[in-house]
């Protein structure tokens, strides 16, 4: 089970829940599972987020595998200059 943490900005979708445990083999399946739990969050996560898996920040990470016990954070997509 991966531990998924929601920043304050995402808690409007989760009704204030800040952390859940989810079973999923890759990021796309993880997002789908989260969308089942918190309808509407799927679109927000696919569009506007990067994901950090055990500290490594990735963008466009749909097929990144999510190891068992991974710590997952969704981050706003950032711009560099």
């Amino acid at each position: 089970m991966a531990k998924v943490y929601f920043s304050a900005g995402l808690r409007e979708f989760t009704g204030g829940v800040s952390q859940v445990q989810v079973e999923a083999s890759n990021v796309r399946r993880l997002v789908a599972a989260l969308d089942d739990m918190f309808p509407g969050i799927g679109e927000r996560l696919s569009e506007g987020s990067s994901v950090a898996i055990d500290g490594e920040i990735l963008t466009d990470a749909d097929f990144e595998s999510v190891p068992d016990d991974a710590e997952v954070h969704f981050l706003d997509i950032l711009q560099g200059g």
Partner: protein
Amino acid sequence: MALTEENPGYKWVGTRPIRPDGLEKVTGKAQFGADLTLPGMLYGKIVRSPHAHARIVAIDTSAAESMPGVKAVITGNDFPDLAANGAHPSAIDISHNAIARDKVLYEGHVVAAVAAVTREQAAAAANAVEVTYEVLPHVLTVDDAMAENAPLLHEGMITKGVEPTPEQPSNVASRVAHERGDLEQGFGEADVVVEQEFTTKPVHQGYIEPHAAVADANSDGRANIWCSSQGHFQMRADTASVLGVSQGTLKVTAAEIGGGFGGKTVIYLEPIAVRLSQRAGRPVKLVMDRDEVFRATGPTSGTRMKIKMGVSNDGKLTAAEVWMAFEAGAYAGGPVGAAGMTVLAPYDIPHFLVEGYDVVCNKPRVAAYRAPGAPMAAFAVESVLDDLARAIDMDPIDLRLANAAVEGTQAAYGPKFPRIGFVETLEAIKEHPNYTAELGPNQGRGVAAGFWFNAGMSSSATVHVNENGTATVVTGSPDIGGSRQSMALMAAEELGIPYESIKPVVADTETVGFTDVTGGSRVTLATGAAVVDACRIVIDDLRARAAKTWDVEVDQVEWVDGQAQHVDGSQPPLSLNDLAAKSARTGGPISANASLNARGVGAAFSTQVCDVEVDPETGVTQVVRYLTAQDAGRAISPDYVEGQMQGGVVQGIGWGLNEEYVHDQNGNMENPSFLDYRMPVASDLPMIECCIIEVPNPAHPYGVRGVGEVGIVPPMAALGNAIKDATGVRMTDLPMSPIKVLEALNEQSD
């Protein structure tokens, strides 16, 4: 000076040879965007709004169209309405920023454009375009824009990220927030609490080369674009979107670029130039003048920030509360999100709340500027940290060391940090002789730190081995800071051939695979990783060819120092020259491609100390001594790593001491020239001493961490802290220009 953890004995990485494109740049041969001339080329000129906020009632182009030499006149009507086509809101904003439709939202907003045979004819025709406006009330600052009953820029803007969702529209596009623990408990545990409000003004990236584009459209719908940009693939995508065409119809070539710093990751001239060229049936050159660059490209946000932080007497930060409002300019999407994520990132604080608001106002849409959002946030937090250190009588570096994020710290923005080098930068400053150098009268010393994530994203590279054993390395990353040298150094290291045998090339959108922008401090990491991958595929191919030649299994062949060697030495080695010369016989030309979405991005930290002398009669702050320590992971090219460090520092010095956008009450910029928008010159500065720290990024083949951006994050706070040390006054409004320092000094003595 470089602090290296392990010295892997690199032959090329870490050296200081001459960069491959340098010769063209010192002889005037290098072709920048405005240097290209095509046969039959016309000159374009843009018509811009003089008003900060207005409805466009009518545009009469008839007079302009009939003027001598005029071959095309266009307005917003010549571009598709993306909103009607159901496009994504961000694409709609880009298209409306490129050329206004029913409203103009800032002084300088594009309204129309003309193309004519000479510059003078184009300028005359632009003046003859008659635009009727209905002027609307405007808002210029976050305070104005957030006030009750403020005039709205976008009638349908409902603030995102607020609960419950507001019923009424406003100028607040979105709210971001991060929190941890319990603020009340945290402040309760503090022995000292400091609370301070800060404001900063918009500043411009200040690249010396104005935007320039040449477009050559053909009657079959295809167009070639030659432009000054940080990312020609991005230009192609955004230009195609605005024009309503398929990306495949556009070929974009990146000219040499005269500075960008984030400001050239967005389109301005390209779709206008293409449409003019299509209408005229001739190539069109569009170059901004400096006035247009200031008024109508994207500076970074002006801000208001409120910081409250608590510390225990023994130096532990117990709580932090941050409220920030950042100007986005005319359309949503400013850098407050990143500011919210970086503001507390260098520190391990158990209780905090960070809130940030993205606020639209009648100013040009902001564009990225070197670590967008982070410098303003750091100005505020690093100033408060300095005051906390004073309050508990603790050395400012020791206070930061006591709370520094390390490997395993849960970052304020969420995930745990992997291996990072923040502590090493703090210690480097503390141990440096500059930190204890004697200070004279009216002099003071200030320290500040900064963090930037750096980016990964997508890059492609192709490596071709030439018949004579040299190699060409082709990438799609426009070279702003010397990246071609880094690519060549890494390729030389991988292939084991001399650096001088590598020719790095930046190719156009048709001749190299997709590559994201040169920005976000990503090129050495991501494009470098693609180059390394392509080299490794080439090496595997070379080993296979040697195996064929020797009639052995490929696992019997190693690649060492540019040669195929048999593992037991039973064959004389085959050099790259040998294998390349016979490549046709062993399978054909030797070349390999790699495309990737980069992983393993390493974050960067910078700690800086500056000494200033403040003239008590004029308020002028002179920078006397400056030292920056930055973790580069591994400095592939130390010369150009230092260059990035020094450049970022000096932009920060300008931001801190002098640069600002000045607007009159009508929303017109009063200082759109280099005379009055005062950037640092050589006589303002001392040498900028550099300490390259190397805590290798464990996830990159060479340990690289991006270096381009983090250097601009600490300087404003370092200066503010030095001014406080020299004079006792805490400056809370940027820039800390002489007149404001003098006012503060006079107030203090009253």
